[in-house]
């Protein structure tokens, strides 16, 4: 079955699910999963077969001939779409079921299928006009998915922010594609490396796609949107949708001539968003916000890889770009896998307890062991700990950076700080997820709902298990995925087509495998030994305190206090404290909130300025006819002056 046929069938399947699935969940699920699987197969065929699929038809759409293409790069992302879309669909079958959300579940199903279709179109469209169409439609589908739960005003606000930000990005893309069209004379998208006059377009693309990708400081919409959306939507938005932005950057940085500064800028942006993103994450108390900010970090990590690749290109296709780009693409997959897993876990916690406040949870491991275990695995993966997949991609990116350093060029001046910031980001990620996992699942339940929590059902557990397996497999046998990555890398930069995998990757794989096995052995051995010695249950050591309560456990704010202090300059945390004093203190309050700094301290003032301008202008329409006629006279004079000033003698 050819790739084209597979894609066609996938389209049809999704279309069917879109049409028939509105009322029938099972039908919808079947067709959506079928579509996802077909897309997956198509992507794999391209990645392993190596040669891109291209289809050009005479059929005009908006005055442009339809032209589709699926090459290594788009296949990488199509794979992600398929996996994220399929697992999310299964998960939503229970999580957002008709029974629990009779009003919004049907809509949700329809928009989900539409979203997958549009993302597929974005990835295959090879004509600027159609790309733009698919892109905007995809953004709108995202909006309606985020705001499924429209009754809550918080959700609506978050959705609006997303829509506004994404439209701002789209305006950038308007300029990008029209400029492309007017410079090259056609809407058709194809490699343009040899046209230096196109170089400035890169910056437009970086902005336009960057808003969607959500790297710092364009991430403003991301935290609230991902936190307020239903969890399966958060999963696909965070795991897949923001990758569409990255796809744009990777795709067009591969086709456009690279301005000399590009590598530096992208690398710098990446490092910044890696560090600050995770710093923000660590400070959060809402675990979905924490995950959202962590996405900013991971986008940053990917951007570091892309940046290194760009540096390599501007330095004559230096070979170290290859490792970094491969790492970046691999991290695209990895992040897709473990972030979806984590959001699914978060969803089942939300599902079970109804709160997103970590400081209201605790001790869930006893009621929801599956979720706890899988979440812990995801946490280790996202913290980049061996032997899981997160480490492999970060390791590749590090190698890229190190090779830049050993290259001893001027480029090292950006690579050195980037490497250090990446290391700090890694340590902070570990801290954040130690905090998240521990506060949600360990210790004692802090509130009533947390004690009543229940484990999620099979429909929700299944996708989580599947993704967990993906994380483990990609960690233990990275070498399997090399051919696919090599194919994508070579389609990005033909000079790197040499398919031989870097030797260490294999060694690393075996090392990770041994490590995993030994870990299992040691764990069982120690458990067995302890059991043999005899296990007794006892009180937790509380330093002889008389009546310890669950509220006395370490909270999210106290856990993060030290590190947040170091990043106060960026996080601008707001604290409201009412210390107890007097012999019989009445009440003591300590409220902590970490605002979205860029939004609340930079954009909001600008917005207020514009709104003030608008208020001033609106005063013109004050209802008096006399003034209206005065305006006409004024216009007459104004235009007259304009004509006089510019009159050609």
């Amino acid at each position, binding site marked *: 079955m050819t790739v084209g046929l597979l894609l066609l069938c996938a389209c049809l399947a999704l279309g069917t699910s879109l049409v028939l699935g509105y009322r029938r969940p099972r039908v919808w699920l079947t067709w959506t999963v079928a579509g996802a699987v077909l897309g997956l197969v198509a992507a794999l065929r391209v990645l392993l077969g190596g040669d891109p699929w291209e289809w050009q038809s005479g059929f005009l759409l908006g005055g442009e001939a339809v032209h589709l293409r699926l090459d290594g790069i788009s296949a990488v992302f199509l794979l992600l779409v398929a996996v994220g879309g399929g697992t999310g669909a299964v998960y939503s079958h229970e999580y957002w079921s008709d029974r629990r959300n009779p009003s919004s579940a049907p809509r949700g199903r329809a928009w989900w299928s539409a979203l997958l279709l549009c993302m597929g179109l974005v990835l295959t469209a090879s004509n600027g006009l159609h790309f733009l169409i698919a892109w905007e439609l995809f953004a709108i589908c995202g909006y309606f998915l985020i705001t499924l739960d429209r009754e809550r005003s918080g959700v609506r606000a978050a959705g609006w922010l997303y829509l506004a930000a994404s439209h701002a990005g789209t305006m950038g893309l308007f300029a990008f594609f029209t400029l492309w069209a007017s410079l090259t004379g056609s809407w058709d998208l194809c490699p343009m490396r040899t046209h230096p006059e196109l170089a400035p377009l890169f910056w437009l693309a970086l902005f336009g796609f960057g808003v969607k990708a959500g790297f710092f400081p364009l991430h403003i919409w991301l935290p609230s949107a991902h936190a307020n959306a239903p969890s399966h939507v958060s999963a696909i938005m965070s795991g897949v949708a923001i990758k569409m932005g990255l796809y744009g950057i990777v795709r067009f940085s591969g086709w456009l001539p690279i301005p000399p500064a590009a590598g530096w800028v992208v690398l710098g942006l990446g490092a910044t968003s890696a560090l600050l993103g995770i710093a923000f994450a660590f400070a959060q108390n809402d675990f979905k916000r924490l995950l959202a900010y962590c996405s900013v970090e991971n986008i940053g990590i990917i951007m570091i890889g892309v940046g290194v690749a760009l540096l390599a290109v501007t330095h004559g296709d230096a070979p170290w770009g290859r490792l970094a780009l491969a790492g970046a693409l691999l991290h695209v997959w990895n992040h897709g896998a473990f972030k979806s897993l984590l959001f699914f876990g978060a969803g089942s916690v939300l599902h079970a307890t109804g709160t997103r406040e970590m400081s209201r949870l605790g001790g869930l491991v006893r009621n929801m062991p599956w979720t706890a275990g899988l979440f812990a695995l995801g946490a280790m993966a996202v913290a980049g700990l061996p032997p899981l997949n997160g480490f492999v991609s970060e390791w590749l990116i590090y190698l890229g950076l190190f090779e830049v350093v050993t290259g001893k060029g001027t480029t090292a001046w950006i690579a050195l700080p980037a490497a*250090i910031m990446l290391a700090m980001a890694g340590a902070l990620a*570990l801290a954040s997820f130690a905090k998240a996992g521990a506060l949600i699942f360990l*210790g004692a339940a802090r509130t009533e709902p947390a004690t009543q929590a229940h484990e999620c059902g099979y429909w929700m557990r299944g996708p989580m298990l599947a993704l967990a397996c993906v994380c483990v497999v990609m960690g233990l046998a990275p070498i399997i995925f090399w051919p696919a990555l090599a194919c994508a890398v070579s389609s990005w930069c033909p000079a790197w087509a040499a398919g031989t995998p870097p030797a260490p990757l294999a060694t690393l794989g075996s090392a990770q495998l041994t490590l995993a096995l030994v*870990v299992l052995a040691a764990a069982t051995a120690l458990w067995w*030994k302890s059991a043999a010695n*005899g296990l007794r249950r006892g009180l937790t*050591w509380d330093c002889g305190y008389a009546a310890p309560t669950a509220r006395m456990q370490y909270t999210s704010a106290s856990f993060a206090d030290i590190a947040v202090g*170091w990043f106060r300059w960026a996080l601008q945390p707001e604290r409201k404290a009412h210390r107890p004093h007097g012999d019989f203190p009445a009440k003591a309050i300590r409220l902590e909130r970490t605002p979205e700094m860029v939004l609340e301290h930079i954009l909001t003032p600008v917005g207020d300025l514009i709104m003030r301008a608008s208020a001033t202008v609106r005063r013109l329409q004050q209802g008096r006819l006399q003034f209206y006629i005065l305006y006409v006279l004024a216009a007459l004079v104004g235009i007259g002056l304009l004509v006089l000033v510019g009159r050609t003698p």
Partner: protein
Amino acid sequence: MTLILHLILRLALWLLLAPLLPGIINKVKAWVAGRRGPPVLQLYYDLAKLWKKSVVLSQLASPGFVIGPAVGWVALVGAALLMPLGPAGSALSFRGDVLLLIYLLALARFCTAWAAMETGSAFEGMGAAREVSYAVLAEAAIIAAVLSLIVHTGSVSLITMLAPSPGAGAALLAAGLFTVLLAENCRVPFDDPNTHLELTMIHEAMVLDHSGPPLAVILHGASVKLLLFAVLLVQAVLPIGEMTPPAAAGALAAGVLLVTISVGLVESLLARLAFRRVPLLLTTAFLLCVFALLVAWKGDAT
């Protein structure tokens, strides 16, 4: 066959020698204080005793409470195996293995913190928070040190990387890494392993609720980590590569001993820092490593 043998020997070396270091440190402290102090092999006795003891689990704890220490221990030992031992080279060496080492330490940290949070005790939460937070700065310092070695040797593999440059660079690196060693192993001035005031502890606070074999594993792991850092420090500053094998081995052993003793001396001469000072000291360590990096850069530029 020989490979297996070699591996086993190396493993044994690490596992058996590691608990010696805390003993030596305590001896030095006692000597400075003019006491007799516990025997050098005290930790061995403790480990043996703990290994036989039964385990008390907090009512809140889940299996992770026991699994955590095991994974942490494995991670530390794995890291140790990656570390080349002078002439003996390393068990497994590949480009970028240094990253695996660093991240194995991180894995160990994650597991300890996780196990600590299991019981929901405020003290252990406190300890875990401190551990993971200070690690951010320590990590930065370590990576800076590694980068300086990379810049100097142009290699990204431990076995060839640990060929230090004599002079200022080495001195700066030594100072930086020594501070990091103190921090990572929770010694004075960052932490006081002997105090019993939970509020002031990091590592000890995290293991308050552990007992029996798990505790033994934790303690042994900690000692392995100490030895690991000592070895790293020595090889990062002493030009061991140029010596003949026996001399190299001797130098290595002597260096480790020296490091251990100096840790003991520091512990007996310095007081523990106030916690708000800790970041300052860590930043200093980081800056020392960065300077080492710059020196290495200039050294090669000229």
